[in-house]
């Protein structure tokens, strides 16, 4: 499997298959980012594709000053922000996103292995951790999402947020501590017996 560097090099030369490889590598992260920002799977799909398409067309301007993944991530974030602005204008200020929208957050196909009881518990723990994320400060939520949901490394997060890596490391630790505190105080996240793996 080619490294990101190699795929980018070939894609910049017009190799569509190489770009397809980059899409494969990044689509889950990009789609979930769009999903988080719009709360809507259809919009998320369309915006993800638009982001990838823009990335393809803008490859000439990508100089490798950051990793492709982080460059693409920023691009996607901007595409979503612009979309939300337009939507807001169109609907006269009504928010397009509902972060409480359970449906939008997880689109997993129900796993047949789980009994209904265990499924309910698994859903509950997911609901709780999402609520916990929402309750965090912006700073804490942001780093945790980038690390836990988007899978970025400390180094990539540092570049995305323009921070020192040490700061990222310590901020994530504090974010986890804050989240844990929330989960201990609200609901039975740690006491439920459901296994999620």
């Amino acid at each position: 499997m080619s490294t990101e560097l190699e795929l980018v090099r070939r894609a910049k030369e017009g190799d569509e298959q190489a770009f397809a490889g980059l899409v494969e590598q990044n689509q889950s992260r990009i789609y979930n980012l769009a999903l988080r920002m719009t709360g809507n799977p259809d919009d998320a799909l369309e915006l993800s594709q638009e982001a990838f398409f823009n990335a393809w067309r803008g490859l000439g301007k990508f100089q490798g000053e950051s990793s492709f993944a982080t460059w693409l991530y920023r691009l996607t974030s901007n595409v979503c922000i612009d979309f939300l602005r337009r939507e807001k204008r169109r609907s006269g200020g009504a928010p397009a996103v509902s972060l409480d929208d359970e449906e939008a957050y997880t689109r997993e196909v129900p796993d047949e292995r789980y009994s209904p009881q265990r499924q309910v518990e698994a859903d509950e723990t997911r609901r709780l951790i999402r609520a916990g994320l929402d309750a965090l400060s912006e700073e804490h939520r942001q780093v945790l999402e980038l690390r836990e949901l988007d899978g970025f490394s400390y180094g990539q997060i540092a570049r995305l947020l323009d921070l020192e890596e040490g700061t990222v490391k310590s901020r994530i630790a504090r974010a986890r501590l804050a989240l844990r505190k929330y989960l201990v105080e609200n609901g039975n996240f740690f006491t439920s017996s459901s296994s999620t793996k």
Partner: protein
Amino acid sequence: MMNCDQALELISASLDESLTPAERQALDSHLADCPACRALLADFQKMNDVFSTLPAAPPAGLSQGVMDRIAAQKQEDASKVTPFPSKKPRRRRWVRWGAAAAVFAVVILGAGRSGMLDVLVSRNAGAAPPAVSDTAENSAAESDAADAASRRSSAGAGDAQSPIQDADVPQSDAADQEISLPEAAAAPAGPSGTGAAGQSGDDTALPADTPLPTVNALTVGTETPDAGPEKNGTSLTIAPASASLTEEAAETALLTYLEEGAPEGGALPTVVSLGLSSDGTGWLFACEAGDGVVHYQVPCDGSAIVCLSD
């Protein structure tokens, strides 16, 4: 000996990255004696597990959809005969429209001498840098247009007056607006509200019977020339009834503008439309530039594209 605060960071890091042997050892010996931190580690691990179940699987068609769109774009680029990419056709068009512009200029000047334009012109004395007409090419074409000019102005002294009066009419309109003449004269018979306006005029000289007031309903901006303060040449001001610039035309204008400023032809800049500005005077765009975003406003009246970012 490590304290719990130091242990916190290592515990957290151990979920994300490998610890160094020294870190591993220090942490392990702390954990051996600290039930609180052992509990913390267990809790962090559970959170970590649940996090991994949150992300949704991307829809199956996502990747293919992207590649299809890329393929479609490639086809479109290959088959499209577009005047935009190369400068040469554009210059030819300037010359042609420059001729028509000269025609217009003669008529306006004629009207100006009669004092009719004083009100309009003076109002624009302090206006922002206009969408500049390429005066060099105008004057070059002027001699060519001499015949057409005389034909036009003799088409009826009365006629020379009425178009100007029509141009006069929209004084009540929002702002006096400046249009670069080549575009003003590029009006095909009848307003066309799309970005194709510029292209459709490529193969025709200005028809002798194109009514001048048509300029009022023009789609300007399809060929916005480089607008910079240093290029502030003479451009006559005409107040149109309405300059209806569509979003697509504005986007095209912006892409052209960016292309001109871009170094050795790379990929097209990526612009995203943000819609009409809140005061309705222009279309807003965000342009992805490397690792940042630059915002532009393309005014509806055809005046210079403005960069809104630092």
